[in-house]
């Protein structure tokens, strides 16, 4: 009769979980019972019963699971102790290793923290997946305009006619001055429907959410209440808000707990939307496409989103006077922060800086990769000190897998130490970091479930990745050779050098990136804008046009002031010709802006203040417009420009394409007119070159006209430079990142060269004794590392070429990736690399050869 065996895996389970004293009896009994049952009831049943009984064995009254685990604990304790001793024995390399890992880990943590925060926006709102913002894709020409907003009329109609919509909540941002005793505080606030309180889940500390529906109702946040000294007695308090239209009194109905910072709709003060309704004209409330607010829509069922979008678009076509192709869409509230397509205004707090986020993640990962490589390379290079230990372990009976797990445990030890150090680094960096990205992080953000989870994942991954390669190499050592001290790492050399090259590749890429960005921003900052900014300051005027003109007159009387001009700001519209539609900007002018800013008139003439007709149907255009419309003789030609009362005006002059917008985009076609189609709201002042700017003088004239609004002004030059603030931030970031990266790579190189030379001390000494001179020795040892570094440089330049070119694509006026970028990059990396190598070699060469030779 055939003898069967019980299933092996179940058998192993018994050995794992049974206390050792009992294994023999229990396992023997189960086997015996198995054979008995095979005869009695057949093999299948016996097998199933064996499995069943095996599982029954794992119970507390028969086996103690912990008793066996205890052995593992003892084993890992010993692994950790050996690892700790090894760290202490090689203090320099351990410190370099752990420091590198700590830097890498802390950068990664920062990146994780930042990304996590940006992604968390609005996800804490209850039912956020049912909450949308109404947006529109408007296509008057080939170009689609993404409009992030809606109108009062749209909101009301949709709420009324679409049954799938539960609620429509209107919000609109505004601005006013609060009088507090002597001071006036500028304060942004939101007009909001009462339902917003529910949607945001505001917790009312004082008062009730229900009384927020009358035009005089106002609620504010705890922190604003504290600022106004009305904490605890806020309800019923009267707050006067003044804006350009005068002063209004509001009654505080409640105080809510501050809104979490990761909320897109967040304000310290809210006024009932009814206040906005009663203050607005009937026309602006009922005009269909008068987009000047945001509406949140809560739909009943997420699945009906497209249906609601279709219905909204249909209703739009029925009501709108615009013929143009339009799609009304719903943007999920959780995407508002991350997606910049529809903009962030009218009550919606600014977007995430996706570029910054990505760069941070990439740099964090790069730093971590470099430090992981450092760890691997160091550990592999220190193998010689471990060879006999591993040989002996193998003699005693350790298998490859247990050596592997020992070395992984050691890397885990290093990583834990690095994590502790990284926490320290984080504590130091966090305040600067949050300053840098304009956030408000404090250390208690670390005690957060998601962060802890992420930190654990980073810890485990890092220790595995950094330990795996050395563990694989070392666990393959042969017993005999390692005991005899003859064990060599054969395959490892290429990998080690490859990894070294990879480090330099990353560092090179980052440095090339920094240099490109700096050059590009310099290019833009020193761009020929065709405007003379010198001594020109601009002010935004909060009052009516009449007040503005009086203010301009007062300014003209000042001896410091050379010229004053007022403009409407650059607004957009389109010119329709029979063939095409051209997007144009238009500007209303009062005063001689062109000569003030030294803008050249290439053809025709400037506006003449003495000619009355220049104030009605005459315009000036820029060269871009002439080109876009293809006009041959612009002077005297009429263009089909149509804005307000101004129709088909005549061109009297052409100006150069001066840069009126950011240098990031190409100069668009522009129409300049003097006829009053748009309210003047900005004043430009050019100071006399000899004059000393006296802010208080301007401020006093300002307060004569525009009290209580604070006097605010910008010098044009500073304003232009400010355009590149985001880029400058990015440069600082990549700069820091690449500094850390090259530092880590240098540590790696330093350690590698030191360790490998350490193995060749005897060789160096013999060469010296036999008469080799220093320069030939330098050449001998430098050449190999130089190869590795050059490989890294080439790889880094090649791989960064694409991402850098893609970044540059985003700029209308850009530099090319030329030798001016490549040469300094190569220079920096080579200098750092070579000086590191030479430093290590000279240390060896300076030593007396006798010290290394006498021991044999």
């Amino acid at each position, binding site marked *: 009769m055939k003898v069967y065996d019980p299933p092996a895996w179940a058998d192993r389970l018994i050995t794992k979980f049974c206390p050792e004293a009992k294994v*023999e*009896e*229990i*396992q*023997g*009994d*189960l*086997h*015996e*019972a198995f*054979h*008995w049952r095979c005869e009695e009831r057949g093999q299948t049943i016996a097998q199933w*019963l064996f499995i*069943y*009984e095996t599982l*029954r*064995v794992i*119970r507390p*009254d*028969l086996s103690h699971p912990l008793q066996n685990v205890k052995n593992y604990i003892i084993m890992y304790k010993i692994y950790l102790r050996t690892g700790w001793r090894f760290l202490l024995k090689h203090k320099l390399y351990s410190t370099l290793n752990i420091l590198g890992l700590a830097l890498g880990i802390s950068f990664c943590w920062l990146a994780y923290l930042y990304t996590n925060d940006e992604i968390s926006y609005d996800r804490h709102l209850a039912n956020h997946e049912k909450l949308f913002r109404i947006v529109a894709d408007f296509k008057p020409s080939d170009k689609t305009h993404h409009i992030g907003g809606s109108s009062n009329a749209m909101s009301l109609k949709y709420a009324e006619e679409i049954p799938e919509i539960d609620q429509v909540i209107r919000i609109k941002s505004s601005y006013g001055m609060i009088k507090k005793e002597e001071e006036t505080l500028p304060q942004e606030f939101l007009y909001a429907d009462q339902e917003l309180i529910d949607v945001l889940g505001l917790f009312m500390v004082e008062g009730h959410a229900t009384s927020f529906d009358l035009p005089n109702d106002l609620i504010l946040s705890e922190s604003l209440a504290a600022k106004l000294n009305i904490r605890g007695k806020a309800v019923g308090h009267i707050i006067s808000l003044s804006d350009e239209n005068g002063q209004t009194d509001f009654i505080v109905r409640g105080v809510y707990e501050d809104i979490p910072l990761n909320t897109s709709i967040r304000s310290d003060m809210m006024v009932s939307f009814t206040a906005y309704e009663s203050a607005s004209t009937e026309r602006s409330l009922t005009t269909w496409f008068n987009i000047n607010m945001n509406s949140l829509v809560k739909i009943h069922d997420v699945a009906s989103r497209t249906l609601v979008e279709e219905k909204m678009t249909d209703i739009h076509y029925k009501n709108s006077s615009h013929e143009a192709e339009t799609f009304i869409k719903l943007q999920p509230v959780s995407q508002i922060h991350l997606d910049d397509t529809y903009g962030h205004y009218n009550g919606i707090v600014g977007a995430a800086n996706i570029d910054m986020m990505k760069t941070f993640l990439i740099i964090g990962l790069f730093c971590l990769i470099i430090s992981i490589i450092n760890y691997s390379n160091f550990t592999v290079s220190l193998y010689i000190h471990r060879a006999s230990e591993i040989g002996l372990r193998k003699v005693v009976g350790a298998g490859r897998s247990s050596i592997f797990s020992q070395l992984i445990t050691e890397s885990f030890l290093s990583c834990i130490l690095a994590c502790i150090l990284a926490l320290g680094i984080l504590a130091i960096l966090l305040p600067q970091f949050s300053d840098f990205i304009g956030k408000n992080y404090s250390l208690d953000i670390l005690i957060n479930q998601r962060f802890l989870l992420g930190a654990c994942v980073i810890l485990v991954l890092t220790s595995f990745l950094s330990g795996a390669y050395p563990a694989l190499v070392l666990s393959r050592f042969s017993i005999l050779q390692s005991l005899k001290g003859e064990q060599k790492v054969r395959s490892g050399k290429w990998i080690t050098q490859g990894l070294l090259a990879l480090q330099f590749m990353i560092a090179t890429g980052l440095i090339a990136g920094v240099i490109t960005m700096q050059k590009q921003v310099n290019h833009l900052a020193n761009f020929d804008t065709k405007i003379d900014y010198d001594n020109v300051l601009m002010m935004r005027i909060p009052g009516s046009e009449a007040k503005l003109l009086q203010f301009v007159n007062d300014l003209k009387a000042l001896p410091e002031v050379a010229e004053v001009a007022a403009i409407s700001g650059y607004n957009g519209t389109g010119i329709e010709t029979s063939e095409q539609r051209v997007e144009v900007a238009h500007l209303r002018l009062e005063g001689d802006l062109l000569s003030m800013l030294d803008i050249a008139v290439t053809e025709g003439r400037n506006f003449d203040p003495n000619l009355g007709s220049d104030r009605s149907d005459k315009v000036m255009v820029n060269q871009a417009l002439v080109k876009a419309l293809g006009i041959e003789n612009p002077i005297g030609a009429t263009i089909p420009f149509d804005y307000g009362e101004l129709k088909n005006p005549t061109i009297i002059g052409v100006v150069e394409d001066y840069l009126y917008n950011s240098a990031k985009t190409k100069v668009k076609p522009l129409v300049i007119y003097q006829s009053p189609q748009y309210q003047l709201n900005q004043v430009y002042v050019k100071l006399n070159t000899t004059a000393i700017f006296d802010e208080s003088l301007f401020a006093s004239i300002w307060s004569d006209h525009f009290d209580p609004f604070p006097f605010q002004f910008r010098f044009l030059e500073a304003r232009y430079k400010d355009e590149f603030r985001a880029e400058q931030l990015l440069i600082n970031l990549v700069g820091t990142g690449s500094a850390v990266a090259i530092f880590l790579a240098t540590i790696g190189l330093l350690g590698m060269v030191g360790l490998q030379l350490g193995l060749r001390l005897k060789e160096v000494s013999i060469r010296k004794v036999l008469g080799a001179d220093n320069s030939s020795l330098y050449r001998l040892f430098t050449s190999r590392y130089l190869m590795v570094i050059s490989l890294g440089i080439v790889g880094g330049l090649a791989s960064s070429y694409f991402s850098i070119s893609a970044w540059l694509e985003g700029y209308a006026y850009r530099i090319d990736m030329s030798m001016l970028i490549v040469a300094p990059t190569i220079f920096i990396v080579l200098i750092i690399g070579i000086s590191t190598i030479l430093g290590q070699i000279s240390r060896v060469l300076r030593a007396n050869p006798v010290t290394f030779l006498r021991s044999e």
Partner: protein
Amino acid sequence: MELIGSLEEIVLMILLNHERSNSVDIAKHYHDALNKHISIPAIHVVLKRMEKKGWVKSEFGEPTAERGGRRKRLYSATASAYNMMTQLNSVKSELWKGITKPSLRYEGL
């Protein structure tokens, strides 16, 4: 007197009948006597419990091939177990005597 479970009682009686048995032997006897199957770990648990109470003692036997070369642990009942069981049985038969003319009262059975 220490309490005894019903499975414990049966296993103990099997052991009183057959000295030096291991759990598989007990399972076989159990099957013969009651015509019911029992799992080996259940017997292990019972034996272990009774060993703690001092009713059974154990020794190692010889290794056999069908056990994969492992030794048997052979269990026997102790004197105290014997005393306890006689006492228990007399108590039981005393109690049984009290049940008069069972056939009259439980006629349907």
